[in-house]
Protein backbone atom coordinates (compact mmCIF):
# COMPACT_ATOMS: atom_id res chain seq x y z
CA UNK A 1 0.00 0.00 0.00
CA UNK A 2 2.86 2.34 0.87
CA UNK A 3 4.45 1.89 -2.53
CA UNK A 4 1.18 2.68 -4.26
CA UNK A 5 0.90 5.85 -2.18
CA UNK A 6 4.37 6.99 -3.27
CA UNK A 7 3.51 6.46 -6.92
CA UNK A 8 0.14 8.21 -6.61
CA UNK A 9 1.72 11.19 -4.79
CA UNK A 10 4.47 11.62 -7.35
CA UNK A 11 2.33 11.08 -10.44
CA UNK A 12 0.74 14.58 -10.61
CA UNK A 13 4.17 16.19 -10.19
CA UNK A 14 5.45 14.27 -13.17
CA UNK A 15 2.41 15.09 -15.32
CA UNK A 16 2.76 18.79 -14.62
CA UNK A 17 6.48 18.91 -15.25
CA UNK A 18 7.79 20.51 -18.41
CA UNK A 19 8.39 17.94 -21.16
CA UNK A 20 12.06 18.72 -21.51
CA UNK A 21 15.06 18.67 -19.29
CA UNK A 22 15.46 21.82 -17.20
CA UNK A 23 18.70 23.78 -17.23
CA UNK A 24 20.05 26.35 -14.81
CA UNK A 25 23.19 28.42 -15.17
CA UNK A 26 24.88 29.52 -11.94
CA UNK A 27 28.05 31.41 -12.63
CA UNK A 28 30.25 29.23 -14.79
CA UNK A 29 28.42 26.08 -13.71
CA UNK A 30 25.50 24.64 -15.67
CA UNK A 31 23.01 22.27 -14.03
CA UNK A 32 20.68 20.04 -16.02
CA UNK A 33 17.82 18.07 -14.50
CA UNK A 34 15.69 15.40 -16.11
CA UNK A 35 13.72 12.35 -15.16
CA UNK A 36 11.70 9.34 -16.14
CA UNK A 37 8.81 7.41 -14.72
CA UNK A 38 6.71 4.33 -15.29
CA UNK A 39 3.30 3.82 -13.77
CA UNK A 40 2.76 0.11 -14.22
CA UNK A 41 -0.19 -2.05 -13.29
CA UNK A 42 -0.70 -5.77 -13.76
CA UNK A 43 -3.37 -8.39 -13.35
CA UNK A 44 -2.55 -12.10 -13.08
CA UNK A 45 -4.94 -13.89 -15.43
CA UNK A 46 -4.16 -17.54 -14.81
CA UNK A 47 -1.42 -19.99 -13.92
CA UNK A 48 -0.26 -22.67 -11.51
CA UNK A 49 -2.06 -22.11 -8.21
CA UNK A 50 -0.49 -22.82 -4.84
CA UNK A 51 1.93 -21.56 -2.21
CA UNK A 52 5.56 -21.18 -3.31
CA UNK A 53 7.84 -20.17 -0.46
CA UNK A 54 5.91 -17.33 1.17
CA UNK A 55 4.09 -16.31 -2.03
CA UNK A 56 0.55 -17.11 -3.08
CA UNK A 57 0.89 -18.05 -6.74
CA UNK A 58 0.49 -17.99 -9.76
CA UNK A 59 3.63 -15.84 -9.80
CA UNK A 60 5.71 -14.14 -12.45
CA UNK A 61 9.04 -12.55 -11.55
CA UNK A 62 9.53 -9.47 -13.72
CA UNK A 63 12.63 -8.06 -12.01
CA UNK A 64 14.94 -10.48 -10.21
CA UNK A 65 17.45 -7.92 -8.99
CA UNK A 66 14.73 -5.73 -7.43
CA UNK A 67 12.43 -8.53 -6.27
CA UNK A 68 9.63 -7.45 -8.60
CA UNK A 69 7.00 -10.21 -8.55
CA UNK A 70 3.38 -10.29 -9.70
CA UNK A 71 1.61 -12.90 -7.59
CA UNK A 72 -1.78 -14.48 -7.19
CA UNK A 73 -2.98 -12.23 -4.40
CA UNK A 74 -5.70 -10.93 -6.72
CA UNK A 75 -6.61 -7.46 -7.90
CA UNK A 76 -4.47 -4.91 -9.65
CA UNK A 77 -0.80 -4.83 -8.67
CA UNK A 78 1.10 -1.56 -9.08
CA UNK A 79 4.37 -2.28 -7.29
CA UNK A 80 6.48 -4.58 -9.51
CA UNK A 81 6.95 -2.26 -12.52
CA UNK A 82 6.28 1.26 -11.21
CA UNK A 83 9.27 3.54 -10.73
CA UNK A 84 10.35 7.16 -10.75
CA UNK A 85 13.87 8.35 -11.55
CA UNK A 86 15.45 11.77 -11.27
CA UNK A 87 18.79 12.69 -12.77
CA UNK A 88 20.91 15.76 -12.26
CA UNK A 89 24.11 16.68 -14.04
CA UNK A 90 26.48 19.48 -13.11
CA UNK A 91 28.68 20.76 -15.93
CA UNK A 92 31.87 22.45 -14.74
CA UNK A 93 33.49 25.56 -16.24
CA UNK A 94 35.97 23.21 -17.90
CA UNK A 95 33.56 21.49 -20.32
CA UNK A 96 35.48 18.23 -20.03
CA UNK A 97 34.23 17.68 -16.46
CA UNK A 98 30.72 16.78 -15.34
CA UNK A 99 29.10 15.13 -12.34
CA UNK A 100 25.92 13.05 -12.68
CA UNK A 101 23.60 11.56 -10.07
CA UNK A 102 20.52 9.46 -10.66
CA UNK A 103 18.12 8.27 -7.96
CA UNK A 104 15.30 5.80 -8.54
CA UNK A 105 12.30 4.97 -6.34
CA UNK A 106 10.67 1.64 -7.14
CA UNK A 107 7.34 0.17 -6.15
CA UNK A 108 9.03 -3.23 -5.77
CA UNK A 109 11.27 -1.72 -3.08
CA UNK A 110 8.36 -0.07 -1.23
CA UNK A 111 9.19 3.29 -2.74
CA UNK A 112 12.67 3.33 -1.19
CA UNK A 113 14.97 5.69 -3.05
CA UNK A 114 18.18 4.13 -4.34
CA UNK A 115 21.14 6.01 -5.72
CA UNK A 116 21.67 4.08 -8.95
CA UNK A 117 24.23 6.28 -10.65
CA UNK A 118 26.74 8.75 -9.20
CA UNK A 119 29.75 9.34 -11.36
CA UNK A 120 32.23 11.96 -12.41
CA UNK A 121 32.94 12.12 -16.10
CA UNK A 122 36.08 13.40 -17.79
CA UNK A 123 36.00 13.85 -21.56
CA UNK A 124 39.57 12.98 -22.52
CA UNK A 125 38.76 13.76 -26.15
CA UNK A 126 35.48 13.75 -28.07
CA UNK A 127 36.21 10.11 -28.83
CA UNK A 128 37.13 8.94 -25.33
CA UNK A 129 35.70 9.40 -21.87
CA UNK A 130 36.68 8.35 -18.36
CA UNK A 131 33.99 7.86 -15.72
CA UNK A 132 34.52 7.18 -12.02
CA UNK A 133 31.84 6.35 -9.48
CA UNK A 134 28.69 4.27 -9.34
CA UNK A 135 27.33 3.00 -12.64
CA UNK A 136 25.34 0.18 -14.20
CA UNK A 137 27.08 -3.07 -15.11
CA UNK A 138 26.85 -3.38 -18.91
CA UNK A 139 26.06 -7.10 -18.85
CA UNK A 140 23.07 -7.06 -21.21
CA UNK A 141 22.02 -4.89 -24.14
CA UNK A 142 19.38 -2.95 -22.17
CA UNK A 143 21.23 -3.10 -18.81
CA UNK A 144 22.01 0.60 -18.79
CA UNK A 145 18.42 1.62 -19.51
CA UNK A 146 16.58 -1.08 -17.57
CA UNK A 147 14.76 1.48 -15.39
CA UNK A 148 13.75 3.79 -18.24
CA UNK A 149 10.46 2.45 -19.51
CA UNK A 150 10.30 4.96 -22.37
CA UNK A 151 13.56 3.52 -23.77
CA UNK A 152 12.14 -0.03 -23.78
CA UNK A 153 9.61 -1.71 -26.08
CA UNK A 154 8.08 -3.72 -23.19
CA UNK A 155 6.30 -2.98 -19.90
CA UNK A 156 9.27 -4.69 -18.24
CA UNK A 157 12.44 -6.41 -19.37
CA UNK A 158 12.26 -10.09 -20.36
CA UNK A 159 13.17 -11.61 -16.96
CA UNK A 160 14.69 -14.75 -18.47
CA UNK A 161 17.66 -12.76 -19.77
CA UNK A 162 17.65 -9.79 -17.38
CA UNK A 163 17.90 -11.60 -14.07
CA UNK A 164 20.98 -11.50 -11.88
CA UNK A 165 21.87 -10.53 -8.33
CA UNK A 166 23.83 -7.32 -9.00
CA UNK A 167 23.23 -4.65 -11.63
CA UNK A 168 25.53 -1.83 -10.50
CA UNK A 169 29.18 -1.41 -9.57
CA UNK A 170 31.47 1.14 -7.96
CA UNK A 171 34.56 1.67 -10.02
CA UNK A 172 36.02 3.14 -13.14
CA UNK A 173 35.16 2.87 -16.81
CA UNK A 174 36.78 4.00 -20.02
CA UNK A 175 34.66 4.55 -23.15
CA UNK A 176 35.97 4.94 -26.66
CA UNK A 177 34.07 5.79 -29.83
CA UNK A 178 35.48 5.61 -33.31
CA UNK A 179 34.65 4.79 -36.89
CA UNK A 180 36.32 2.21 -39.11
CA UNK A 181 35.22 2.31 -42.73
CA UNK A 182 31.40 2.15 -42.49
CA UNK A 183 31.37 0.81 -38.95
CA UNK A 184 30.63 2.85 -35.83
CA UNK A 185 32.51 1.31 -32.91
CA UNK A 186 31.77 1.93 -29.25
CA UNK A 187 33.95 0.17 -26.69
CA UNK A 188 33.95 0.21 -22.91
CA UNK A 189 36.34 -1.22 -20.31
CA UNK A 190 35.55 -1.27 -16.60
CA UNK A 191 36.81 -2.39 -13.22
CA UNK A 192 35.28 -2.19 -9.78
CA UNK A 193 33.35 -3.91 -7.01
CA UNK A 194 29.77 -4.12 -5.73
CA UNK A 195 28.02 -4.87 -2.48
CA UNK A 196 24.26 -5.55 -2.32
CA UNK A 197 22.51 -5.43 1.03
CA UNK A 198 19.29 -7.45 1.35
CA UNK A 199 19.50 -8.79 -2.17
CA UNK A 200 16.12 -8.80 -3.95
CA UNK A 201 17.37 -11.61 -6.16
CA UNK A 202 17.85 -13.96 -3.22
CA UNK A 203 14.46 -13.04 -1.74
CA UNK A 204 12.97 -14.46 -4.95
CA UNK A 205 14.72 -17.79 -4.30
CA UNK A 206 14.82 -17.95 -0.50
CA UNK A 207 11.64 -16.16 0.56
CA UNK A 208 10.61 -12.56 1.10
CA UNK A 209 11.67 -12.57 4.76
CA UNK A 210 15.15 -13.93 4.07
CA UNK A 211 18.11 -11.59 4.18
CA UNK A 212 21.17 -12.20 2.02
CA UNK A 213 24.05 -9.84 1.31
CA UNK A 214 26.01 -10.18 -1.92
CA UNK A 215 29.54 -9.08 -2.66
CA UNK A 216 31.21 -8.97 -6.06
CA UNK A 217 34.94 -8.24 -5.89
CA UNK A 218 37.54 -7.74 -8.60
CA UNK A 219 34.98 -6.99 -11.30
CA UNK A 220 36.73 -6.64 -14.66
CA UNK A 221 35.07 -6.54 -18.05
CA UNK A 222 34.03 -4.62 -21.08
CA UNK A 223 31.74 -4.39 -24.05
CA UNK A 224 32.06 -3.60 -27.75
CA UNK A 225 29.21 -2.41 -29.96
CA UNK A 226 29.57 -2.44 -33.74
CA UNK A 227 27.03 -0.61 -35.85
CA UNK A 228 26.79 -0.37 -39.61
CA UNK A 229 23.72 1.15 -41.26
CA UNK A 230 20.82 -1.11 -40.20
CA UNK A 231 22.93 -3.78 -38.47
CA UNK A 232 24.23 -3.74 -34.91
CA UNK A 233 26.02 -6.31 -32.80
CA UNK A 234 27.26 -6.11 -29.24
CA UNK A 235 29.46 -8.41 -27.19
CA UNK A 236 30.34 -8.17 -23.52
CA UNK A 237 32.45 -10.07 -21.03
CA UNK A 238 32.55 -9.67 -17.28
CA UNK A 239 34.25 -11.60 -14.54
CA UNK A 240 34.33 -11.27 -10.78
CA UNK A 241 34.69 -13.07 -7.49
CA UNK A 242 31.31 -13.55 -5.84
CA UNK A 243 30.33 -14.11 -2.24
CA UNK A 244 26.94 -14.35 -0.49
CA UNK A 245 26.10 -14.19 3.18
CA UNK A 246 22.66 -15.41 4.23
CA UNK A 247 21.85 -13.67 7.53
CA UNK A 248 18.67 -15.29 8.78
CA UNK A 249 18.02 -18.54 6.93
CA UNK A 250 15.86 -19.48 3.98
CA UNK A 251 12.10 -19.95 3.93
CA UNK A 252 10.95 -23.53 4.47
CA UNK A 253 7.57 -24.11 2.79
CA UNK A 254 6.76 -27.12 5.00
CA UNK A 255 7.28 -25.35 8.34
CA UNK A 256 6.50 -21.83 7.04
CA UNK A 257 9.55 -20.55 8.92
CA UNK A 258 13.07 -19.46 8.12
CA UNK A 259 15.54 -22.33 8.53
CA UNK A 260 19.33 -22.21 8.39
CA UNK A 261 20.58 -23.02 4.91
CA UNK A 262 23.06 -25.83 4.37
CA UNK A 263 24.17 -24.33 1.05
CA UNK A 264 27.82 -23.34 1.45
CA UNK A 265 27.44 -20.84 -1.39
CA UNK A 266 25.13 -18.80 0.87
CA UNK A 267 27.73 -18.68 3.62
CA UNK A 268 30.63 -16.63 2.34
CA UNK A 269 32.19 -19.21 0.01
CA UNK A 270 34.12 -17.22 -2.60
CA UNK A 271 33.58 -18.36 -6.18
CA UNK A 272 34.39 -16.90 -9.55
CA UNK A 273 31.97 -16.12 -12.35
CA UNK A 274 32.47 -15.37 -16.03
CA UNK A 275 29.57 -13.73 -17.86
CA UNK A 276 29.44 -13.76 -21.66
CA UNK A 277 26.72 -12.03 -23.64
CA UNK A 278 26.17 -11.17 -27.28
CA UNK A 279 23.32 -9.47 -29.11
CA UNK A 280 22.40 -8.88 -32.73
CA UNK A 281 19.97 -6.34 -34.15
CA UNK A 282 18.56 -5.44 -37.55
CA UNK A 283 16.86 -2.02 -37.54
CA UNK A 284 15.03 -1.61 -40.84
CA UNK A 285 13.09 1.59 -40.01
CA UNK A 286 9.67 -0.12 -39.83
CA UNK A 287 11.03 -3.38 -38.44
CA UNK A 288 13.39 -4.10 -35.57
CA UNK A 289 14.66 -7.61 -34.92
CA UNK A 290 16.92 -8.18 -31.93
CA UNK A 291 18.31 -11.28 -30.26
CA UNK A 292 20.31 -11.64 -27.04
CA UNK A 293 22.28 -14.60 -25.74
CA UNK A 294 23.86 -15.10 -22.33
CA UNK A 295 26.14 -17.61 -20.64
CA UNK A 296 27.24 -17.46 -17.01
CA UNK A 297 30.01 -19.89 -16.19
CA UNK A 298 31.17 -20.47 -12.63
CA UNK A 299 34.26 -22.66 -12.58
CA UNK A 300 33.67 -25.44 -10.07
CA UNK A 301 29.90 -24.91 -9.77
CA UNK A 302 27.32 -27.64 -10.41
CA UNK A 303 25.48 -25.75 -13.16
CA UNK A 304 25.82 -23.09 -15.84
CA UNK A 305 23.22 -20.46 -16.80
CA UNK A 306 22.02 -19.97 -20.36
CA UNK A 307 19.49 -17.39 -21.54
CA UNK A 308 18.29 -16.40 -25.00
CA UNK A 309 15.67 -14.12 -26.42
CA UNK A 310 14.37 -13.09 -29.82
CA UNK A 311 12.12 -10.10 -30.37
CA UNK A 312 10.49 -8.55 -33.43
CA UNK A 313 9.07 -5.01 -33.37
CA UNK A 314 6.89 -3.57 -36.13
CA UNK A 315 6.80 0.21 -36.07
CA UNK A 316 3.71 1.97 -37.35
CA UNK A 317 2.98 5.66 -37.40
CA UNK A 318 2.69 6.53 -33.72
CA UNK A 319 2.62 3.01 -32.35
CA UNK A 320 4.56 -0.25 -32.20
CA UNK A 321 3.85 -3.95 -31.88
CA UNK A 322 6.48 -6.23 -30.32
CA UNK A 323 6.53 -10.01 -30.06
CA UNK A 324 9.18 -11.58 -27.87
CA UNK A 325 10.29 -15.05 -26.83
CA UNK A 326 12.80 -15.46 -23.99
CA UNK A 327 14.08 -18.59 -22.30
CA UNK A 328 16.34 -19.37 -19.38
CA UNK A 329 17.77 -22.75 -18.46
CA UNK A 330 20.43 -23.95 -16.10
CA UNK A 331 22.50 -26.86 -17.32
CA UNK A 332 23.82 -29.34 -14.77
CA UNK A 333 27.57 -29.95 -14.66
CA UNK A 334 27.57 -33.66 -13.88
CA UNK A 335 31.29 -33.73 -13.01
CA UNK A 336 30.58 -31.23 -10.22
CA UNK A 337 27.62 -33.19 -8.86
CA UNK A 338 24.92 -31.27 -10.74
CA UNK A 339 21.47 -32.89 -10.86
CA UNK A 340 19.97 -32.78 -14.39
CA UNK A 341 16.49 -32.98 -12.83
CA UNK A 342 17.22 -30.26 -10.32
CA UNK A 343 17.72 -27.33 -12.66
CA UNK A 344 15.67 -24.17 -13.18
CA UNK A 345 14.18 -23.56 -16.63
CA UNK A 346 11.37 -21.36 -18.00
CA UNK A 347 10.24 -19.73 -21.21
CA UNK A 348 8.27 -16.51 -21.66
CA UNK A 349 6.29 -15.40 -24.72
CA UNK A 350 4.98 -11.85 -24.80
CA UNK A 351 3.08 -9.52 -27.10
CA UNK A 352 3.29 -5.76 -26.47
CA UNK A 353 1.54 -2.82 -28.09
CA UNK A 354 2.98 0.62 -27.53
CA UNK A 355 1.22 3.86 -28.42
CA UNK A 356 3.10 7.16 -28.27
CA UNK A 357 0.95 9.79 -26.57
CA UNK A 358 3.57 12.46 -27.26
CA UNK A 359 7.27 12.55 -28.16
CA UNK A 360 7.96 12.13 -24.41
CA UNK A 361 5.31 9.64 -23.30
CA UNK A 362 3.68 6.37 -24.21
CA UNK A 363 1.22 3.75 -23.02
CA UNK A 364 1.85 0.03 -23.39
CA UNK A 365 -0.24 -3.08 -22.99
CA UNK A 366 1.50 -6.44 -22.69
CA UNK A 367 0.24 -9.95 -22.37
CA UNK A 368 2.69 -12.72 -21.61
CA UNK A 369 2.68 -16.37 -20.80
CA UNK A 370 5.47 -18.00 -18.84
CA UNK A 371 5.90 -21.77 -18.82
CA UNK A 372 7.93 -23.42 -16.09
CA UNK A 373 10.16 -26.15 -17.51
CA UNK A 374 12.20 -26.77 -14.36
CA UNK A 375 13.28 -30.31 -13.42
CA UNK A 376 11.22 -32.37 -10.98
CA UNK A 377 13.79 -31.74 -8.24
CA UNK A 378 14.00 -27.99 -8.84
CA UNK A 379 12.80 -25.69 -6.05
CA UNK A 380 11.32 -23.08 -5.79
CA UNK A 381 9.05 -23.94 -8.69
CA UNK A 382 6.95 -20.85 -9.40
CA UNK A 383 5.01 -22.65 -12.14
CA UNK A 384 3.18 -21.25 -15.16
CA UNK A 385 1.62 -17.80 -15.32
CA UNK A 386 -0.32 -15.63 -17.74
CA UNK A 387 -0.04 -11.93 -16.94
CA UNK A 388 -1.55 -8.73 -18.37
CA UNK A 389 0.38 -5.52 -17.68
CA UNK A 390 -0.25 -1.90 -18.64
CA UNK A 391 2.31 0.89 -18.36
CA UNK A 392 2.43 4.64 -18.78
CA UNK A 393 6.00 5.86 -19.43
CA UNK A 394 7.21 9.40 -19.49
CA UNK A 395 10.51 11.25 -19.69
CA UNK A 396 10.79 14.83 -18.53
Amino acid at each position, binding site marked *: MRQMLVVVLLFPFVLLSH*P*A*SAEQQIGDFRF*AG*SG*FMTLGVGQMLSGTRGAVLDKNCPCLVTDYAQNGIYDGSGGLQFAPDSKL*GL*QGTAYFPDPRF*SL*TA*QAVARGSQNGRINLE*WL*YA*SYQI*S*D*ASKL*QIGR*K*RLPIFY*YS*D*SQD*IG*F*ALPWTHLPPQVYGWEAVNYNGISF*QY*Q*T*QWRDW*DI*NAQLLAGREQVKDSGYWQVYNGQASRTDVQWERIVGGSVTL*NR*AWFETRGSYLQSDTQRNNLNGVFNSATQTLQPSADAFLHNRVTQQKIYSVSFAADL*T*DWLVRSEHLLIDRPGASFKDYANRLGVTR*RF*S*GWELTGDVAEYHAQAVIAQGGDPQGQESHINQSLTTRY*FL*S*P*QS*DVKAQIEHQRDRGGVNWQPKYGNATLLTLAYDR*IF
Partner: protein
Amino acid sequence: MKIIVFSLLLLLSPLSAAEPALAIIANQDSDYSNLTRRQVVDIFMGKLTVMNTGTFPQPLDYQGNPEIRERFYHLLTGKSLAQVNAYWARMSFTGQLNPTRLLNDQKVMLRAVGKNQAALGYVDQAEANATVKTLLIVE
Protein backbone atom coordinates in the same frame (compact mmCIF):
# COMPACT_ATOMS: atom_id res chain seq x y z
CA MET B 1 -22.39 3.56 -48.10
CA LYS B 2 -20.07 4.79 -50.87
CA ILE B 3 -19.50 8.00 -48.95
CA ILE B 4 -18.49 6.02 -45.84
CA VAL B 5 -16.09 3.81 -47.83
CA PHE B 6 -14.60 6.86 -49.54
CA SER B 7 -14.18 8.64 -46.20
CA LEU B 8 -12.50 5.61 -44.68
CA LEU B 9 -10.13 5.33 -47.64
CA LEU B 10 -9.27 9.01 -47.23
CA LEU B 11 -8.56 8.50 -43.55
CA LEU B 12 -6.40 5.43 -44.13
CA SER B 13 -4.43 6.75 -47.11
CA PRO B 14 -1.00 8.17 -46.27
CA LEU B 15 -0.51 11.88 -46.68
CA SER B 16 1.38 12.38 -49.89
CA ALA B 17 2.21 16.08 -49.63
CA ALA B 18 6.00 16.60 -49.84
CA GLU B 19 7.60 17.95 -46.68
CA PRO B 20 9.45 21.28 -47.02
CA ALA B 21 13.20 20.86 -47.47
CA LEU B 22 15.68 21.52 -44.68
CA ALA B 23 19.18 22.96 -44.88
CA ILE B 24 21.98 21.48 -42.80
CA ILE B 25 24.08 24.49 -41.82
CA ALA B 26 27.51 25.22 -40.39
CA ASN B 27 29.64 28.24 -39.58
CA GLN B 28 31.02 30.04 -42.65
CA ASP B 29 34.57 29.62 -41.32
CA SER B 30 34.22 25.97 -40.37
CA ASP B 31 36.17 23.25 -42.14
CA TYR B 32 33.03 21.20 -42.83
CA SER B 33 32.59 20.46 -46.51
CA ASN B 34 29.58 18.70 -48.00
CA LEU B 35 28.11 16.13 -45.63
CA THR B 36 26.29 12.98 -46.60
CA ARG B 37 22.87 12.11 -45.13
CA ARG B 38 24.52 9.23 -43.27
CA GLN B 39 27.07 11.57 -41.66
CA VAL B 40 24.32 13.97 -40.59
CA VAL B 41 22.29 11.12 -39.06
CA ASP B 42 25.37 9.78 -37.24
CA ILE B 43 26.30 13.22 -35.89
CA PHE B 44 22.80 13.97 -34.59
CA MET B 45 22.44 10.48 -33.11
CA GLY B 46 25.80 10.78 -31.33
CA LYS B 47 27.53 8.04 -33.33
CA LEU B 48 29.98 10.25 -35.25
CA THR B 49 31.96 12.30 -32.77
CA VAL B 50 35.06 13.24 -34.73
CA MET B 51 35.40 14.20 -38.40
CA ASN B 52 38.25 13.20 -40.68
CA THR B 53 39.52 16.76 -40.38
CA GLY B 54 39.83 16.37 -36.61
CA THR B 55 36.85 18.61 -35.88
CA PHE B 56 34.56 17.48 -33.05
CA PRO B 57 31.06 18.26 -34.35
CA GLN B 58 28.64 19.96 -31.97
CA PRO B 59 25.08 19.31 -33.18
CA LEU B 60 22.44 21.83 -32.10
CA ASP B 61 18.77 20.94 -31.89
CA TYR B 62 15.45 22.53 -30.96
CA GLN B 63 13.76 22.69 -27.58
CA GLY B 64 10.42 20.90 -27.18
CA ASN B 65 8.55 19.32 -30.04
CA PRO B 66 8.50 21.88 -32.88
CA GLU B 67 7.34 20.69 -36.29
CA ILE B 68 10.80 21.28 -37.80
CA ARG B 69 12.35 18.79 -35.37
CA GLU B 70 9.76 16.13 -36.16
CA ARG B 71 10.33 16.74 -39.90
CA PHE B 72 14.13 16.62 -39.56
CA TYR B 73 14.21 13.18 -37.95
CA HIS B 74 11.44 11.83 -40.14
CA LEU B 75 13.24 12.91 -43.33
CA LEU B 76 16.61 11.59 -42.19
CA THR B 77 15.77 8.44 -40.23
CA GLY B 78 12.18 7.60 -41.12
CA LYS B 79 11.44 7.50 -37.40
CA SER B 80 9.05 9.61 -35.37
CA LEU B 81 10.30 12.12 -32.82
CA ALA B 82 9.02 9.84 -30.05
CA GLN B 83 11.15 6.96 -31.35
CA VAL B 84 14.20 9.24 -31.59
CA ASN B 85 13.53 10.47 -28.03
CA ALA B 86 13.35 6.85 -26.85
CA TYR B 87 16.82 6.31 -28.33
CA TRP B 88 18.12 9.48 -26.67
CA ALA B 89 16.55 8.51 -23.34
CA ARG B 90 18.67 5.37 -23.43
CA MET B 91 21.80 7.33 -24.31
CA SER B 92 21.50 10.33 -22.00
CA PHE B 93 20.14 8.61 -18.86
CA THR B 94 22.92 6.03 -19.01
CA GLY B 95 26.00 8.19 -19.34
CA GLN B 96 26.73 7.10 -22.89
CA LEU B 97 26.15 10.47 -24.51
CA ASN B 98 25.67 14.00 -23.32
CA PRO B 99 22.35 15.47 -24.45
CA THR B 100 22.46 17.75 -27.47
CA ARG B 101 22.17 21.48 -26.72
CA LEU B 102 18.61 22.66 -27.40
CA LEU B 103 17.70 26.05 -28.83
CA ASN B 104 14.45 28.00 -28.97
CA ASP B 105 13.91 28.71 -32.66
CA GLN B 106 15.50 29.10 -36.10
CA LYS B 107 16.74 32.64 -35.48
CA VAL B 108 18.61 31.48 -32.39
CA MET B 109 19.90 28.52 -34.39
CA LEU B 110 21.32 30.77 -37.12
CA ARG B 111 23.00 33.00 -34.50
CA ALA B 112 24.45 30.03 -32.58
CA VAL B 113 25.86 28.38 -35.70
CA GLY B 114 27.22 31.75 -36.84
CA LYS B 115 29.26 32.04 -33.62
CA ASN B 116 30.60 28.47 -33.32
CA GLN B 117 32.94 26.88 -35.86
CA ALA B 118 32.18 23.34 -34.63
CA ALA B 119 28.39 23.74 -34.56
CA LEU B 120 26.00 22.01 -36.91
CA GLY B 121 22.34 22.88 -37.14
CA TYR B 122 19.34 22.76 -39.40
CA VAL B 123 16.76 25.30 -40.55
CA ASP B 124 14.10 25.50 -43.24
CA GLN B 125 15.84 25.86 -46.59
CA ALA B 126 14.18 29.27 -47.06
CA GLU B 127 15.64 30.50 -43.74
CA ALA B 128 19.28 29.66 -44.55
CA ASN B 129 21.11 32.93 -45.22
CA ALA B 130 24.60 34.21 -45.93
CA THR B 131 25.63 34.16 -42.26
CA VAL B 132 25.95 30.37 -42.44
CA LYS B 133 27.21 27.72 -44.85
CA THR B 134 24.70 25.21 -46.27
CA LEU B 135 26.21 21.72 -46.31
CA LEU B 136 23.28 19.61 -47.40
CA ILE B 137 19.67 20.00 -48.47
CA VAL B 138 17.44 17.31 -47.01
CA GLU B 139 14.11 16.69 -48.72
